[in-house]
């Protein structure tokens, strides 16, 4: 994992490595653009009640195939419950779940063959070594041939940077938190997956581990896998995800692509200039809406491309020192949406 020169070759999608596309080759983003593909997961009217606690209520969500969807929410907002329902570990009180086109939990075996998941932390037997634990799960994977269990385990360990880790052959109970988490990730990546579900994957990891997880997610995305990631770390989602769903008190309060959500207040350009009044006048002259806020000129981009704004200012001779798209920032949006929700 710490040797980028090698990982590039090794972590290329297996179908490419073998030189022959298998029927199971994951749908690539470019192909997805040609033929519309059904979502990797679809939740409709989902409701889950534990005794008297409503954990989820009327949740509708599509996880687009090929996307990296970040599920954001505070602790106890229902993220894990949603993932457990999605994986058929738990039955919904009401509503429907579809995973890779299969109804859940009825079609669990067909769907889960192509799904890797790390939910509610890594789970392994304490008296077996990390490697033996992984081999036990590899033996339960339908797509792994019996003669290839050892190789499968080695490859998964390699992907999470544990192939040179001596502790992996000692009993799991003595493993460090980070090692346990990496092992959990390895279990989710035992076979090429069409969908990978990671519940707070960077828990217990050091900065290098967090970087590795981001790289892994990037690799999965590049290979065409869909990734569903839950987190309460906004920076993590902002850096790795293409799509975001925000969960608050058991309901989805916002969904969309990362860009859409970041521009939730409407697209606008923030312009730093020493002559804001001249800038505003130039914009008005071309009927581009704008105003001054905290010393910055804000140009509305709803009907105007940013190029036009900049060329307008340039031709009017307004000195522009910096211009960037305004981002509300996930944090601000998140706080606003979740505080409204509670």
């Amino acid at each position, binding site marked *: 994992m710490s040797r980028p020169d090698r990982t590039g070759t090794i972590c290329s999608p297996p179908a490419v490595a073998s030189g022959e596309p298998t029927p199971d080759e994951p749908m690539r983003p470019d192909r997805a653009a040609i033929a519309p593909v059904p979502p990797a997961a679809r939740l409709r009217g989902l409701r889950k009640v534990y005794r008297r606690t409503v954990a989820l209520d009327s949740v509708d969500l599509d996880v687009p195939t090929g996307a990296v969807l970040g599920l954001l929410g505070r602790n106890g907002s229902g993220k894990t419950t949603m993932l457990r329902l999605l994986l058929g570990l738990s039955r919904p009180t009401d509503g429907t779940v579809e995973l890779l086109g299969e109804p859940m939990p009825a079609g669990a*075996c067909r769907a889960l063959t192509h799904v890797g998941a790390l939910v509610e932390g890594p*789970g392994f*037997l304490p008296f077996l070594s990390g490697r033996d634990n992984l081999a036990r799960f590899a033996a339960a994977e339908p797509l*792994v*041939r019996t003669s290839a269990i050892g*190789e499968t385990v080695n490859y998964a360990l390699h992907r999470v940077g544990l192939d040179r880790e001596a502790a992996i052959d000692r009993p799991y109970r003595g493993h460090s938190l980070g090692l346990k988490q990496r092992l959990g990730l390895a279990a989710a990546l035992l076979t090429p997956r069409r969908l990978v579900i990671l519940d707070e994957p960077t828990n217990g990891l050091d900065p290098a581990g967090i970087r590795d997880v981001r790289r892994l997610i990037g690799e999965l995305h590049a290979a065409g896998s869909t990734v569903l990631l839950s987190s309460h770390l906004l920076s993590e989602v902002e850096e790795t995800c293409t799509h975001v769903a925000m969960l608050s008190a058991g309901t989805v309060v916002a969904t969309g692509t990362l860009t859409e959500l970041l521009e939730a207040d409407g697209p606008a350009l923030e312009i730093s200039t020493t002559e804001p009044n001249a800038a505003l006048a130039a914009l008005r002259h071309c009927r581009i809406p704008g105003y001054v806020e905290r010393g910055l000129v804000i140009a509305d981009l709803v009907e105007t491309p940013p190029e036009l704004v900049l060329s307008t200012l340039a031709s009017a001779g307004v000195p522009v020192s910096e211009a960037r798209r305004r981002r509300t920032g996930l944090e601000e949006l998140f706080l606003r949406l979740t505080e409204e929700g509670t």
Partner: protein
Amino acid sequence: MSEPVQRASRRTLAVTPAGDRHAAPLARLLRVELRTEPRRPRTLVALVVLALVPVVIGLGVSVSSADRPGPGLGLITAVSGNGMMLPITALGVALRLLLPLCVCIAAADALAGEAAHGTLRGLLLAPVSRIRLVWIKAFGVLAVAVLQVAVVTGAGLLAGLILVGGGDQLLTLSGSSVGLGAALARVALAAGWTVLQVAAVGAVALAISAFTDHPLVVLATVLGGAIVFGLLGAIPAMDWLRPVLLTSGWASLSDVLRDPVPGDGLTHSALLAGVYLVIGMTGAIVGTLRREA
């Protein structure tokens, strides 16, 4: 340097083309279960303790018979000078508490323990179907039960031979003696019958294991139940209940030591164990299907 790359490309061939298989081969899952179960530290401790049962009885008998021959306490004194009786006596003693306890530990670990470790989730996500998982786990518990009974029997035969002696024939409780072959057949009968009884306890324990995430709940429930059953069996007013109490049938193990072997008690208790097995497995399947993993 190129070795991992090779490994990676070989691995792609290791994965069968998708779409044609949604479950790992059953034999492979059973093999893994067989390899995993005996590696649990408590399974090993249980086996050692069980092996000590016939050894302690053998030692006790050989010491007491030296200075105090004559009538004594039932089965155990009958072992004196009668080594072939030791394995059967040891099975009877172990069946009173130790064997149910040990099989209960295995059954508690099988579902509740796996759930507590978070590994049940991993198996379900692999995916292993829930019903299949119950059968695999039942197989594992049965394997442990067989191993435990085999250890008691094996240690009993050895201890009988070495500590007690007189291993060339079996002196029955009826006073007759049977040859070595027939004696071994009786030991095998006793062992087989005991496996069935222990398996019945294991199935009930597995059912409770399917409904909880706490292994201790399984132990408390099954052992508590066994004690209550023992009490009910001992209350004269509750005589009518005895035919359905699993524990009440356990006394019929000593029938193996009579000549000829009276079959009624053994058959009834074996059938009863079968009923408990069916009930237990049904419960285990229902619990696992309903379970929130």
